[in-house]
């Protein structure tokens, strides 16, 4: 590969060997990057993970089934009922098309392709990192940076097998674009410039810079003018080669999107609770830096220093990349991912330089030690060194070094004993002086190398641990180790499979938006809201329904044609991220649009609780009822294992909903809306707004309606 193209010394064989070794190492790095990410497949199974990947999976399935033209024109009526979503125009098609073409050329199993897309592109990203770092600081740094990137936990967290998401591919696109940019800069070749433009376009098509970072933004990623603007700026930048300004422009062009994001993010979190409700959008803590980039955090400063000696275009680019990504990673946990390659490149440079210095010091001093220890005849030792010199003279690089050897030796020796035979001594010149200054004491360098190896070992152990334990859980299958063996909690798929097979194909399922993508992909049922979260009002409507008492909720759901309501309940087995724990966000988001839902009504003295002290509004809301319906019959006390308390209201009946399915561990409960009664028994209530069918009227009614539970 490119490793061979480095030096054209007389020792072609040595170089060829080095080249082959380099290719081999890169191959192993690729294997490492791939295999460290398939812990999830080995520990669990080959399955799509989490939430967003299910959407991408579904889109890919559609693409492979219906072809590219149908895909562009796809209007999805299975989601955001009754609004629907224009998928072709709102999705970032890069990932889908990538996997789709992999499916077309290589495999015909869509799921397998989707599961393994991320690990494959991680290997590619490692290679791209090699190329970029090689442009910046040489082959050695490149190899180390590639190895570091292959297993950096921050990237693993986004690219384990099954996490079929934009980020996994985007990091490759990002790094590769940077490589081509730096390459163009270094060579001035039009070929690379063109490649660079294409690659940049691919990256934009992937849309990470916008899409993966903030969920609310983004329509028509490819078509929007600002993308073309940044794209054009970049093109111009590359082709016209404004070297003087390139730093500014470059920074502008690619961080433009992020700036926009971050700007919007601060805006959004202030005014839209949806954004704030996503844990990925919180600022990171120091432990998360340690968790995600581990020892790289300590190596990065050294890398920056190494980049300044000497400062080239490429190395200043790397420094700039690092600094900006550090800044942005401080805004949002999610942006740590962008920091990871920068940190790897810097650490690779730092480690490579450090090894360079230490090994050189050892190499220069080692012959000395060997010679001095016998301390036989000086002439002997002199001649042996001289022969050493002669034998090494064939290679230019080693000539210099052995030169230094012969220089080094007498200078130390002079101090020890004055001898007459200093025929071969030569006057040290400037450059030799420089090199001699870089030479560290032997013991110190040996210890340092050992320490660096230990540090690297620590990093590897941490990465493997992170890959195996922390980031491999698919989150739709949970496992726990009990004394009697492994327990598998497969409740989500149980519920989705039930919905898929035992409800009508056009039934609408309402749930909190977290489960929207999974429901459409796994249960193939129409959902009201999903993880795309583009319509805040719609989500607020569902939030309002969940926070309302049963009858009001029934009316809202009925107006949306909902037939089934799905809630996630972890109280029986202690699954903490259930709907009761997310409930306050539903109240907030609902209350943001419909003012009759007020957060304080659900809090007792500012505390969120579901025990006997809870407010009546809380105990009567739909979410509480659906979660705890007949829960008391399991143990007689209704002890909630997540909240670690007995619930407030234990015995109640549902009048407008009926339980149709509950999974084995009660983690998902599905209720059906009872059909309206033909005849209302007892006294008739005051005639209300008769138009229940249109949802807008319903919302207006909801707005004006007084909350009966306060």
């Amino acid at each position, binding site marked *: 590969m490119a490793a061979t193209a480095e030096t054209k010394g007389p020792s072609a064989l040595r170089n060829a060997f080095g080249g082959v070794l380099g290719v081999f190492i890169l191959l192993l790095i690729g294997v490492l990057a791939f295999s460290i990410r398939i812990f999830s497949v080995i520990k669990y199974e080959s399955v799509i993970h989490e939430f967003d990947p299910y959407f991408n999976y579904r889109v890919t399935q559609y693409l492979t089934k219906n072809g590219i033209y149908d895909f562009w024109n796809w209007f999805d009526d299975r989601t955001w009922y009754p609004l629907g979503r224009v998928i072709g125009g709102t999705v970032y098609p890069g990932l889908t098309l990538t996997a789709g073409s992999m499916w077309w050329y290589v495999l015909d199993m869509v799921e397998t392709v989707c599961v393994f897309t991320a690990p494959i592109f991680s290997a590619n990203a490692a290679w791209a990192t090699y190329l970029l770092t090689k442009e910046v600081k040489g082959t050695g740094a490149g190899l180390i940076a590639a190895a570091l990137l292959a297993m950096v936990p921050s990237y693993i967290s986004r690219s384990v097998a099954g996490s079929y998401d934009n980020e996994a591919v985007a990091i490759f696109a990002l790094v590769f674009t940077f490589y081509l940019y730096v390459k163009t800069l270094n060579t001035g070749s039009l070929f690379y410039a063109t490649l660079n433009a294409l690659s940049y376009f691919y990256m934009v098509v992937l849309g990470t810079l916008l899409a993966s970072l903030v969920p609310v933004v983004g329509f028509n990623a490819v078509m929007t003018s600002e993308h073309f603007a940044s794209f054009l700026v970049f093109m111009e930048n590359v082709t016209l080669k404004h070297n003087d300004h390139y730093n500014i422009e470059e920074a502008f062009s690619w961080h433009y999107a992020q700036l926009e994001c971050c700007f919007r993010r601060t805006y959004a979190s202030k005014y839209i609770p949806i954004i704030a409700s996503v844990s990925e959008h919180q600022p990171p803590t120091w432990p998360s830096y340690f968790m995600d980039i581990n020892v790289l955090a300590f190596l990065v400063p050294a890398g920056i220093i190494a980049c300044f000696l000497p400062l080239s275009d490429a190395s200043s680019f790397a420094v700039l990349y690092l600094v900006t990504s550090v800044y942005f990673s401080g805004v949002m946990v999610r942006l740590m991912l962008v920091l990871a390659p920068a940190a790897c490149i810097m650490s690779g440079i730092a480690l490579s330089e450090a090894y360079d210095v230490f090994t050189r010091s050892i190499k220069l001093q080692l012959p000395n030690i060997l010679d001095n220890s016998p301390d036989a005849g000086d002439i002997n030792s002199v001649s042996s060194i001289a022969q050493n010199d002669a034998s090494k003279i064939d290679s*230019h690089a080693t000539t210099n070094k052995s030169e230094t050897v012969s220089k080094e030796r007498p200078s130390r020796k002079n101090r020890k004993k004055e001898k007459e035979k200093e025929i071969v001594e030569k006057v040290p010149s400037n450059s030799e002086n420089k090199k001699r200054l870089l030479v560290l004491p032997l013991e110190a360098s040996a210890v340092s190398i050992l320490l660096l190896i230990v540090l690297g070992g620590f990093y590897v152990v941490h990465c493997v641990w992170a890959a195996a334990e922390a980031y491999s859980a698919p989150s739709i299958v949970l496992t726990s180790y009990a004394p009697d063996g492994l327990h598998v909690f497969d409740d989500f798929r149980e519920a989705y499979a039930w919905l898929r097979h035992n409800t009508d194909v056009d039934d609408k399922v309402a749930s909190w938006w977290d489960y929207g993508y999974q429901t459409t992909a796994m249960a193939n049922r129409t959902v009201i809201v999903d993880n795309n979260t583009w319509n805040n009002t719609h989500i607020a409507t569902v939030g309002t329904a969940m926070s309302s008492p049963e009858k009001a909720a029934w009316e809202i759901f009925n107006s949306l044609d909902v037939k089934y309501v799905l809630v996630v309940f972890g109280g029986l087995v202690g699954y903490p991220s259930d709907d009761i724990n997310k409930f306050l966000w539903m109240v907030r988001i609902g209350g943001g649009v419909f003012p009759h839902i007020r957060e304080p009504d659900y809090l007792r003295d500012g505390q969120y609780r579901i025990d006997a002290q809870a407010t009546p509004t809380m105990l009567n809301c739909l979410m509480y009822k659906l979660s705890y319906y007949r829960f008391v019959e399991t143990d007689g006390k209704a002890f909630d294992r997540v909240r670690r308390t007995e619930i407030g209201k234990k015995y109640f009946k549902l009048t407008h909903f009926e339980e149709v399915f509950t999974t084995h561990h*009660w983690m998902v409960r599905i209720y059906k809306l009872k059909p309206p009664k033909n005849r209302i028994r007892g006294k008739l209530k005051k005639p209300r707004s008769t138009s229940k069918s249109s949802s807008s009227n319903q919302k207006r009614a909801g707005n004006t309606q007084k909350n009966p539970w306060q």
Partner: protein
Amino acid sequence: MAPTVPRFVLLLFLLPILSSTARSDLVISRVDRRVENVGAGAVSEVLLAFPNSQAENLAAIKTIYIEGKGKGSSSSLPTARVEPEGVPPELTFYSISLPKGLEKGETVTLDILTVFTHSLKPFPEEITQADVQLVLYQDSAHYLSPYAVKVQTLGIRLPSRRVESYTKYPNTKLVESEIRYGPYENVPAFSYSPIVVHFENNNPFVVARELVREIEISHWGNVQVTEHYSLVHGGAGTKGGFSRIDYQYRHSISGMSSFRHLIARLPPRAHSIYYRDEIGNISTSHVWGDSRRTQLEIEPRFPIFGGWRTSFTIGYGLPLQDFLFESEGKRVLNITFGCPMAEVVIDNLIVKVVLPEGSKAISVSAPFPTKQWQEIKYSHLDIIGRPVVILEKNNIVPEHNLYFQVYYKFNNLSLLREPMMLIFGFFFLFIACIVYMHTDISISKSSASYLAKLQWDEVQATVQQVQNIISHSLAVHEKLEASLRDLSRTGDVQSCKAARKAADGQLKELAKELKPLLGFLQSSTQASQIWPKVEELVVKEKEMQEKLMLRHATVVDCFEKKLGGREIENRIASQQQKISALRQEVDDLLEVIDEI
């Protein structure tokens, strides 16, 4: 033949077994009949009649002919559907061919086994989780026959003792869980007296609406079986939702007709078993086995109640040598037709046998009639595709779980085709790479930039050679130094001189070699940038040579004069410094040139 003429007298003992535990949705009816020919002339056929409503659900029919009385050897007789003339259209007829003609007055004992599916109608049609499942069975108390019947009894064996109601005729009694009608004597032909039995049946009615079995043969030693199930619980539908709490904590009275798991009996030595559906692996399954069979217990994702559906896929590999044999130059695949689960009734079974690419002369022999056709399937590295034999049959019951055979011809050499394709593919890829690296594919060979590039390459090569020569001469310098050191150690002046002579010769040769190269560099326009450096390098090197020689001469001289070490040192000190400086310059220049 006019069946309206009663030529047979039948002695019947009819025994429908309604739902034994393993056979949920099935009615298995065994008819023992002794047939006596009372007509004239020998006959070789016996007709059986079923009402159309029953005949639709008839899944299997089998006749066993018992020779002699009591314990005779038994053999099964061919039974086929016929459409005789002059019979009411509401009836469907099957005909049994007797092995030999039945003479007048002779009797023969036939044991007829028929299996009906979907004959038990749940009533009520929808039940709650806590209810038991009640079903209706309709039949005739008199055996429907085109012949007059002498004596006949009917026994209905039920799966439980609880019977809601049953049609009461004279001679009817309920004993334990068996209802007996009869014996009736001298029943005329085509007599029909409907009966209805309403009883409890909590056995799950597992029905596979469709089962697609794909059997793929790989001559590398594997038979891969993949079975796609689409199951439904055919019993009474569920109303009023499903309560997990009742199901978990009051299991004895809740969901009695539902089922949680199924057991598949796979052939021995089945391996790589998986169980999944469209959204991933289903973790609730167990496998155990011995040398005779492998048992796979699978549990669907959720308990299946009446009317609920699910679908899943089971796959397993089997060793090829257990199922593939050779006979008369042909290969025979001998494998079971039905599904490995005994409880399952299959509405529509499709068996696809995927033969290896290049199979020819394909023929199928099945133990019962099936719809058959062929397709082509493309898999990895296929060119002409693999032939697929497809068999389709409705109403499959465990009685159909028989072996069928697929015969085909296959050349073993075809096995190597795909590996060879890969090998050659990569081979040509590498060849292409080598060719690409070694050929000049520039479009315009006369353009200035192209020529300049060529020249530049040449210049680089020349500079490389110059560098080589310089480093050689540097090596010679080292040798000189070494000889000096030898001298200081041994005092052998002669050898030192010899070394100097040799070095001199070598250096001269090198200088000779250098000359044309320098000439080329000087003339080349491309080398204008590098030339001054090279020139300087050569000059410095020459200077260094001279100095070295001078010093060598001085030292040797001193030794000849037997001067002391310190004196020698003093003498050569200045030379030494110059040499070092020169050496440094040469090295620097080499580095600079290298960078260019």
